[in-house]
């Protein structure tokens, strides 16, 4: 394994000098070495990243879910019936147990009510307002500050080596596009996520896109390779995730010819962030962890491999 040259600045200063960091440096060195056996032309250097739990925090609950809850609370005065109706009642009462009991169907209903019924521009303004004002319950900071510094460095390092970096997330495509460019340097057109149906309409002679309460695409599990194929049209050579929802994306990436890189972030750091894996309701990492071990994918131990987690530390 070729060591990173000591005289050039360390591109990953927030990573400890462990196997995970070395594996990243080694992979990038090999695919960018002209004339080398593993060289990949720049156009094919596609790297895909899950978002929740991979690039930013996802605890105590997916941030977009927290946005949905805040939105339901803001809209509640117009809907007195919600005081009696699940899953809305659970949100208004902060009753996580009742919320969990409403299942996927209940969550989907909350997403539709909180995310649809407006134009794309109106929705963007609502999300922006939330980002400007809402604070994370534990860190008391705006949510978009809770991005992982080591991953931001990794994104920049890959791009400096000719990679095109994409987000491929189960989260909402429009929700992420609002802040991903500033937080990660990833432009909207390289953000792929779940989406609801939008409909083109003329309002007062002006064209608008109206967000309908109807799921267009669920970008999770098997949906991830499908979305990668639809949006990118090339197979990535590197994939980064942290949960079972990322397994198929990593499998799809690994199945291509030539050198490939697959990485899972294992949340092992209750002191600085959270520790969770096989039994977590949010970001469960179970079968993917087993497969990663069996296939020698890189598993990042957050506690041991990261010098720091957030830029504000």
């Amino acid at each position, binding site marked *: 394994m070729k060591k990173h040259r000591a005289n050039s600045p360390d591109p990953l200063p927030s990573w400890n000098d462990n196997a995970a960091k070395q594996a990243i440096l080694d992979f990038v060195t090999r695919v960018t070495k002209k004339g080398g056996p593993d060289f990949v032309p720049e*156009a094919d250097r596609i790297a895909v990243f899950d978002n929740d739990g991979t690039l930013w925090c996802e605890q105590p609950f997916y941030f977009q879910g927290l946005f949905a809850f805040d939105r339901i609370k803001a809209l509640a005065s117009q809907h007195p019936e919600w005081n009696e109706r699940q899953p809305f009642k659970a949100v208004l009462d902060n009753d996580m147990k009742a919320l969990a009991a409403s299942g996927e169907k209940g969550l989907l209903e909350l997403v539709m009510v909180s995310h649809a019924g407006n134009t*794309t521009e109106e929705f963007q303004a609502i999300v922006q307002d939330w980002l400007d004002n809402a604070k994370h319950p534990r860190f008391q900071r705006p949510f978009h500050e809770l991005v992982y510094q080591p991953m931001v460095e990794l994104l920049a390092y890959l791009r400096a080596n000719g990679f*095109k970096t994409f987000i491929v997330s189960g989260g909402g*495509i*429009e929700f992420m*596009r609002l802040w991903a*460019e500033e937080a990660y340097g990833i*432009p*909207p*057109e*390289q*953000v792929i996520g779940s*989406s609801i149906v*939008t*409909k*083109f309409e*003329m309002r007062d002679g*002006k*064209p608008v*896109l109206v967000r309908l309460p109807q799921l*267009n*695409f669920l970008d999770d599990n*098997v949906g991830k*390779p*499908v979305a990668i*194929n*639809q*949006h*990118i*049209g*090339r197979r990535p050579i590197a994939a980064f995730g942290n949960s079972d929802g990322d397994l*198929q994306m990593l*499998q*799809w990436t690994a*199945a291509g010819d030539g050198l490939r890189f697959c990485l899972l972030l294992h949340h092992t750091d209750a002191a600085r962030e959270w520790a969770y894996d096989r039994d977590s309701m949010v970001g469960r990492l179970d079968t993917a962890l087993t497969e990663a071990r069996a296939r020698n994918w890189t598993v990042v131990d957050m506690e041991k491999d990261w010098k720091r987690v957030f830029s504000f530390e």
Partner: protein
Amino acid sequence: MKRTMINRMMGAAFLFLLVFSQAYAQTDPLPSWNDGPAKKAIVEFVKTTTEKGSAKFVASEARIATFDQDGTTWVEQPMYTQVIYCLERVPAVVKAKPDLAKVEPFKTVLSGNREAMAKFTMPDLEMILAATLTGMSVDEFSAEAKKWLEAARDSRWKRPYTELTYLPMQEVLKYLRANGYKTYIVTGGGQDFVRVYSERVYGIPPEQVVGSAGGTSYRYAKDGKPFLTKEPKLLLNNNNAGKPEGIHLMIGRRPYAAFGNSTGDKQMLEYTQAGDGARLAMLVLHDDAKREYAYGPAQGLPNTKVGTFTQALYDEAKKKSWTVISMKNDWKSIFSFDK
């Protein structure tokens, strides 16, 4: 003595002019365009959105330009190239599923009766598209389409279809990119088909091709290797209102410039123009039967089912100050091979 000096100076000035005019000729970014309102509109748009200090300056990351493909960047007559591909794939499909030979519309395709084929209804065409574009893995499809594109020849010019791109539009693509624009194909045609050649032919990478797209399903082969199969289920119908919807889903920004040639592009142009600041909306009018084709029915041109440009669209363009490109008057040459 004095005279020699003057001569020398004259000579130097002449040389300077010569060099300067040559340099100038070399820097004309749109040499296949005649000087006219269309060329002027493009050059002025680029200047006003990219020159520092311009009141309508656009940040480089927001510079998005979208191009329809069929009839805008390449020939779409007498029939969309992808439909020809599908029709020519039918024999191979029937070979694998012999029962189809007795069923319409496959029977008619196999008969080779072009007149009968021209009368196909949408459901007929959909059956042919489903049979020839789905059921295989995405890699198999790309390989088949690539092979066909190398071998197939257009009936009029006897050239590969990928050579039938419009040189003036190729120049616009390059000119925009040289000025920091990200260029996209936004086509009603199949996304997977265009992606097979977009990078080679237009310099547009697959991730910047937005088109109608079918769903795929993720499965595992016996050895555990995953593959994606093309399914006869539409993910995105990228035509008419589907174009701005597709742009929003796939790009997530409103374009600053949009180019089309038919009613299928109307909403994309409306959506583009509705943004703030300088916007460029252009439509190619095929009014050149001699060098290419003439069809509308706008401006009394012959009517067509392929790439219809109605008078209503023409009137909307005039009303909204979109630029209509006259192929006949605005384009010095049409193809790179007819220079």
